[in-house]
């Protein structure tokens, strides 16, 4: 059965801290790994990772994929209260044309 597992389930940090969110996956015909940020409603696209070992960066956020060990991490440096959200990772399956999501990591950043 295809599955994506995220850890930790929840995390509370203080502003300025650096956090690392983990995502491991076991899916058939894996194509790419996507990260989303979900606040109140729509998951907002952050990164799409297809190649192993190549870091993608956007401001204070960065992510990398390890296709040998089947995991990805999302790093957030100098956290702000606006980073508080649920972070979802999803594996995209090549022939299934669908995303398999993990349960998410709830991040709360305290001021």
């Amino acid at each position, binding site marked *: 059965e295809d599955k*994506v597992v995220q850890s930790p389930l929840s995390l509370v940090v203080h502003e300025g801290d650096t956090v690392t969110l983990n995502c491991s996956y076991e899916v058939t015909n894996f*194509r790419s790994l*996507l990260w*989303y940020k979900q606040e109140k*409603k*729509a*998951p*907002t*696209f952050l990164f*799409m990772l297809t190649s192993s070992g190549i870091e993608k960066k956007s401001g204070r956020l960065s992510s990398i994929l390890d296709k040998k060990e089947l995991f990805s991490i999302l790093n957030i440096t100098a956290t702000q209260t606006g980073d508080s959200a649920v972070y*979802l990772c*999803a594996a*995209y399956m*090549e022939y*299934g*044309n*669908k*995303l*398999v*999501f*993990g*349960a*998410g990591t709830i991040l709360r950043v305290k001021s």
Partner: protein
Amino acid sequence: DAGVTQSPTHLIKTRGQQVTLRCSPKSGHDTVSWYQQALGQGPQFIFQYYEEEERQRGNFPDRFSGHQFPNYSSELNVNALLLGDSALYLCASSLKLRHSGLSGAQHFGDGTRLSIL
């Protein structure tokens, strides 16, 4: 550039009723996927439409059906509603890359919050 839009925002139904949810994809996108997100869980794939046909389906019963129109918009229909159908229903659109057969990153709408009483 309009993103993915869904309607209605909220909906309250009773058990046994039927519901139709609507989705307009992001401009330039031709593929629509539907997901169900129960409270505290990640979205679960229901099905995907491309060229007005259902291309892939997740582990959902036949009570869940859909349609895609020539303008790429889509509907999700759920019959004989159950209490367990209460969830946030998300629509995601993407652009299918014709030569590779792959889809690009999926962009989500704000969802329809469906409550079953």
